[in-house]
């Protein structure tokens, strides 16, 4: 683990993530998220996980974020619609909560360094990942497919309009009956 690289990368991740939630333009948010993903790939590289770093860039920065951008551009977002909540109470409580969480975990992290157990060899290359996926993690690997399938079915259900098909059927019936009369 290269500490000299790790600290600038983590700072970059934090700054970019803050940018994601603070940006008022969703396209900017998405692009900043791409940056954060690439920086996380950098952390993986520091841990000698070249394959994982590559996957991180391919899948997150490449595929998923492009889909994000597609969706953001197809949804009509007006400039005056701001994503940031303006309620004073929720802002204050949010800052209070996240601040206290931060300090809690900051002190935990100080303790963390002293109690770090040996985590063994990091299996970040293609061979190691393949072994994990097909042996000890074969069941979770399969369950992920079920989760993804469920999500896919969910998108179809949520975007399905029960009245749409009925209306289009009625419309086609009207056209047909009109044609018969003529």
């Amino acid at each position: 683990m290269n500490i000299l690289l790790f600290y600038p990368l983590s700072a970059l991740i934090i700054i970019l993530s803050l940018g994601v939630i603070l940006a008022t333009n969703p396209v900017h948010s998405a692009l900043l998220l791409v940056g954060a993903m690439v920086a996380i790939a950098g952390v993986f590289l520091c841990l000698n996980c070249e394959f994982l770093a590559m996957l991180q860039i391919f899948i997150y920065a490449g595929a998923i974020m492009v889909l994000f951008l597609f969706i953001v551009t197809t949804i009509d977002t007006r400039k005056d619609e701001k994503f940031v909540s303006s309620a004073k109470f929720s802002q204050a409580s949010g800052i209070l909560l996240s601040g206290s969480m931060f300090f809690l975990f900051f002190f935990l992290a100080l303790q963390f360094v002293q109690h770090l157990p040996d985590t063994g060899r990091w299996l970040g290359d293609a061979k190691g990942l393949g072994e994990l996926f097909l042996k000890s993690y074969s069941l979770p690997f399969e369950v992920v497919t079920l989760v993804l399938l469920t999500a896919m079915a969910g998108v179809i259900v949520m975007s399905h309009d029960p009245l749409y098909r009925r209306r289009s059927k009625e419309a086609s019936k009207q056209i047909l009956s009109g044609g018969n009369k003529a």
Partner: protein
Amino acid sequence: MSSWLQASNWLVMLPEMIIAFFALIILLVAAFTKDSEAPYPESLAITGLALAFISSYYIPEGVGYYGQVAVDSVSRTAFSIAILGGMLVLGVVPSQFGTDTMRSETSALVLFSLCGVGFMVTAQHLIMLFLGIELLSLPLYIMAGMRTRDPRSREAALKYFIVGAFASALMLFGMAIYLGANGDLLMNHFALSFQKNAVPPTLIFFAGWILISTAMLFKLGAVPFHMWVLDVYQGSPSSITAFMTFAPKIAAFFALAKMWPLGSESGLSTPISMMYLLSFLTMTAGNMMALMQRNIKRMLAYSSIAHGGYMLMAFLISGTEGIHALLFYLAVYALMNIGAFTVITLVAPSRDPELSIISLSGLAKTHTYLAVALAICLFSLTGLPPFGGFMAKFFLIKAVLASGNVYIALAAIFNSLLSAYYYLRVVLVMTTREPLAADSDELISPSAGFTSIGLSSRIALAVAIIGVVISGISPDFFARIISL
């Protein structure tokens, strides 16, 4: 190949595999048939669940898939309860979505959700637990928003999704810390750290443990994490709400049982006092807020929070007695809620869609059987003697008293007395009030209300009511059915 099969002990997951297989079949059938000629997808789903239920008797116990999952009698029974409840809910689904085209999707999603329950109760690795929680919750988010035209339903889906995502984020954060504290994500570190005379767990372990437990408490709606329950239960379609009341509870309770020291067995006082407080707050707050509700679904939502509080008492009992009382309670609780929500599903279309309690007035005269069924469920939820709810509370409170926690048992008894007010008020409204004016048309033409009730939901309702009665009269026989 054969060595892999032997090493993975793959048969332990057979019920989940059967359920997932049938869910895929339902989706495929739905994709290749027209809506009008689709066969009853629920029957296919119920067949799958029945096969899974039978197979769960024959699968071997033990660890499988390289230590990812482990099946024991408790996890098997918990999963069987969820499967049986799922079968009953699927019986009610046709009357809910009768004219809609969403029935095959609903059936498949219920099956996926049950799969998630199975993975959660058997998980031995936090990755499995996390995937189980996601597989359980994703279908629930979707089904909550199934009435896409109804703003309440959309609100329910969105709220549930956001709160669920927050809980998942907490859990992932906790998992990261747990990994740091232990070096791997196996769940047996919980049991090892909470043994008597074990090395006291580090602060960092506690942080991970608290975060993961919090995610579970979100799922079962314990009191500081209960805000979502109300709107989600109200906005979702009633039959789906019935499923929501028990499936996530079963999964979360038995996942929690694997990571929480039961009673005083750990020798640590912090977990006990935390659970004491959680249980007391949950049951009291749930009951207090239920007193003020005018909407029957909101009232049942708060009552489900209160029941969650009673069930949390099981964690104050060391040994297996508390877990067995919890299993019995969950089984009875699932039946009572399925019964109550089935009646609501059947009554709702002909009455007030907002489902205020007043809209049930005179139900005993217009729909006598439904009123009797709802009354039995409400008596049982109160904990009146001839019904299952009484025996469930009796076993639980007896075990709590035996473990020496007198005050929390007294609080539970007092809360039960308090809950009688709002449960019995509904019964009073059903019997003593005259039917509302809008309902009198229906009296003249009874076809509007009664024939629209599908046969399958009548059977499901009957089974639920019989279960509630049998569990009250002969709890041993009931326990044998659910293979305790």
